[in-house]
């Protein structure tokens, strides 16, 4: 009888001190610092990212000594975990580099772009980006960098398999993949692992005339066209056997791109831009090229997948001018161009695009941008859908699993109240 109360007393004591601490936490609230300071959280794209921002911030602080910038550069994996923590604890950064913005805008957390960017900078953004960064005509997302996807192919593999030119239709694609497989290659490396499954599936869904949402903006994840597309992929893997083993858990970078660079893969989804060139193909002996995505039939218009990351500015009274000073500095042509070139992405501004047009690798990507289709970034549910697609769609590749049921359960996520 005595044992339990004593334990309870001990825990109670700890609890009491804990509550005292909790009281302090509430009392002192958000630690914001002096009015001339902003918190900036940037995503780490490569090991060059942190040095870039350190240098930029120190130059900015020299130019604007009254503004202090607290910079954090966080790798993507950690960022996806840290951002919700920041929101939950109300420690919003002033400026955040992320891959979606709509849910934050809908919750009323963001400044409109017009509050934190001067008109000249806003006018420079490529129009298609601005469109997918605006909700109800108000721009909240600030286009940061972009990338596009294409069908990468190994020229030597094509020659050996007797393939004259890259496939334009699904039927040609299957034939070519079979030929390449017969010639000893992985015919098509299908990266449906969690890293970027939503990109791979977008490409196949769109090339079949399907997609994430209908014209009214409602999710149509389990539409017949989408089911057909996922069935097509499952057939590639399990019936035609032209893919690598376990495509449902193969990531593009550690899986497909690594094998593409060592010459094992005939075709795979790639990014026809600098970052792919410098990080994967720099020392590779593979002679490769990129082609438009094959379509189910030629009546479906040519397209590419455009992926953009955004910056967003969280509302904090009185901080808009500080944000504006910093963001205008970031988008100064030389600063912005420097970042885009170092990381090997496509620029989201017209002036930087023009400046890079002479570079052959970038020019390929830039030329594709006008036909780019984007994820439904304006939909506040997209962040949940993207996460659910990444963690589940690959299971449709396991033999015996019905692709339709996987898409049905994803559609449920989209329509559920949560």
């Amino acid at each position, binding site marked *: 009888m005595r*044992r339990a109360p004593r334990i*309870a007393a001990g825990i109670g004591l700890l609890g009491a001190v804990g509550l005292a601490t909790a009281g302090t936490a509430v009392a002192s609230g958000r*630690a914001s610092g002096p009015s001339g300071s902003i918190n900036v959280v940037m995503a780490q794209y490569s090991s060059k990212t942190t040095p870039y921002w350190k240098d930029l911030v120190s130059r900015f602080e020299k130019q604007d000594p009254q503004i202090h910038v607290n*910079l954090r550069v966080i790798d993507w994996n950690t960022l996806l*975990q*840290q*951002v919700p923590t920041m929101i939950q604890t109300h420690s919003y950064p002033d400026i955040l580099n992320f891959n979606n913005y709509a849910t934050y805008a809908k919750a009323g957390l963001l400044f409109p772009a017009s509050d934190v960017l001067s008109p000249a900078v806003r006018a420079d953004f490529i129009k298609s980006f601005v469109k997918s960064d605006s909700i109800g005509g108000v721009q909240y997302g600030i286009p940061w960098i972009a990338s596009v996807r294409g069908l990468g192919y190994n020229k030597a593999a094509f020659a050996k398999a007797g393939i004259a030119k890259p496939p334009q239709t699904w039927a040609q694609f299957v034939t070519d993949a079979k030929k390449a497989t017969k010639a000893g290659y992985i015919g098509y490396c299908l990266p449906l692992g969690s890293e970027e499954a939503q990109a791979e599936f977008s490409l196949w869904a769109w090339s079949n005339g399907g997609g994430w949402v209908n014209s009214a903006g409602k999710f149509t994840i389990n539409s017949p066209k989408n089911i057909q597309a996922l069935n097509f992929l499952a057939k590639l893997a399990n019936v035609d056997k032209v893919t690598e083993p376990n495509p449902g858990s193969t990531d593009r970078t550690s899986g497909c791109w690594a094998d593409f660079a060592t010459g*094992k893969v005939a075709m795979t989804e790639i990014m026809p831009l600098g970052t792919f060139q410098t990080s994967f193909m720099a020392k590779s002996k593979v002679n490769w090229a990129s082609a438009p995505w094959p379509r189910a039939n030629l009546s479906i218009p040519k397209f590419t997948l455009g992926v953009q990351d955004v910056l967003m500015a969280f509302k904090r009274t009185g901080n808009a001018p500080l944000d504006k000073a910093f963001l205008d500095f970031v988008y100064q042509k030389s600063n912005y161009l420097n970042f885009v070139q170092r990381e090997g992405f496509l620029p989201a501004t017209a002036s930087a695009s023009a400046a890079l047009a002479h570079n052959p690798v970038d020019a390929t990507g830039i030329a594709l941008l006008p036909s780019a289709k984007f994820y439904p970034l304006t939909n506040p549910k997209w962040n949940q859908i993207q*996460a659910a697609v990444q963690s589940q769609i690959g299971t449709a590749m396991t033999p015996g699993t019905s692709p339709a049921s996987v898409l049905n359960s994803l559609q449920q996520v989209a329509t559920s109240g949560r």
Partner: protein
Amino acid sequence: MSVTTASSTAPAVSGGRSRTTGPPRPRRHARRLVPLVWIGPTVALIAAVVVYPAIEMVITSLHRISSIGLDQGFTGLGNFRNLFSEPALGHVVVNTVLWVVLVVGCTVLLSLPLAQFLNKRFAGRRVVRWALIVPWAASLVMTATLWRYIYEGSYGMLNRVLLDLHLISAPVYWYQNPATAFWCLIVVGVIVSIPFTTYVLLAGLQAIPPELDDATRVDGCSAWQAYRFVTFPLLRTSLTVAIVLNTIYVFNSFPIIWVITGKIPGDATDTTITFMYKIAFTYRLDAGEAAALGVLNVAVLMALVGVYVRHVRRSESDAAAVPSAPGARRSAFAAARRGVATVLAGLASGLEAVLARLAAGVALPLRRPAAVLATGWRRGRAVGLPVIGALVAAFFLAPYAVMFLSSIKSNLDLFHSPALYLPTHPEWGNFASVWSQIPLASYLVNSLIIAGGSTLLVLGVALPAAYYTARHRFRGRQAFLYAILVTQMFAPVALVVGIFREVSSVNGMNSYWALILIDAGFNLAFAVWIMNGYLASIPVDIEDAALVDGATPFQTMTRVVLPLAKPAIVTAVIFTFIQVWNEFVVAETVFNNPTTNRETLTVGINAFVGLYQTQYNYLFVASLIGIVPVVVLFATIERYLVGGLTAGSIK
């Protein structure tokens, strides 16, 4: 344990030495406050660091949190309802049970003979012991990253070795294939759990007097009989400690599963801990539902802690140190705890029985050949033991050899298919250029400051508490010991939100002191328990003599007891240092400002995990450099370690 017993067994130190004979009531109050002086700092630190985030977690579990993290108010048990309607939950629970039972079971089965072996004297034994340390000293995140690289399909080293041995004919996609993925994890789980377990058992073996072994020989027992009937029963206490502690560590194990298969679609390999993370950050983006699972996880672990406490208490009462309190049996809490304890104890003794049966079954038909072998063995022993030792060392070091060889490979070599044993052109420059690629020197200094600071703080705070609880029976003693042990059982992943809020509220973001306090708070439990157990085993007469000679209690502790307790202190130091050195989740959350180079090593080297590419070579170079300080520290004090490790249970 009654109050009267408590005060009567603690006369000399508490109020008894006061010269003035004041009225009895205030003196009694003063006496009650004495324990607080000794254990107060521990209680305060734990309360400040652990209790608040724990409360935050419970509150979160009762609130609806939006997909981006906004708190939308109280929702009652809504999160628990959502959790129980997760279609994957049943599968995940089965996984968790399998994971814990298989990893702990295999670990113990393998550690028993290994400990026996390392207890023998042979040339090179110390080297084998050091080799065993490496998987323990390397951060789990890095070890897991290494294993994922080894398990890779087209460029993994495992496939290369198995192909060369003609054991497989085509590459196997070990961790991508749902059929093999879970087993891959179990292998890694076992390998990284063996060192700790082996050392626990080794310490247990060392506590067995060597004369006993001689006696059985004289009585004509075979070596097996001696082990089965003499050594094994005496090892029972250590074995139970190993099983219970491992159960807790393995249950809470996050990095292995997360790094190797966390990104595989579906939930084929998830345990409740990784599932919790997925619910929060990938699967559902629902921090509330994740917190609900976190609360349930802790509830299960508290039951396990109850078993551990009960076990230690039973060994205490076996030693007749504490009279049992029969009244406690009536409380529902105690009954529930006893229920779980019985199940667990049943499991443990079942495992023991299986072990014994298994060994007996193997031994019986082999008796005659064994006798022949034994004669040969006695002759070959001098050579045989070191050879076996070398094989053991090679096994545990092999993954790190892969790490080293990969660290000097070029990007192209790293992804060569099949894997290359040796780099085509060793890039030794990686070891030099890594220092300029990231501010590695700053990271090392930061990690040293934080690990060193936390270790000192833990020692300073835990020693008085451990000493006092070992020497005195006072009100709340068991509650204290139980409560601090509970703190060990929270998965940091579940507490991050609370820690973040707490640290930013006291302006401690990116400051050394905040992280030192937090790391110390989370590692107090182990230190208190280990030192408490060891100190209790030191005869009290020595101290009485010192007190009679006029030393104050504090002087007695510092001048008489501490020198005797060196093994326990060293043990606490090494454990705390390793834990803090490799800590990842908290450091990444509250100590993460690259502009001022405020990052620890484990966090900083993630710069090599880019959005599109993991620079394995640099990652491995930095990881190897990170192992060095720990191994050096370990090698310096390894010989003390073995004495102190299970003192807490053996006393």
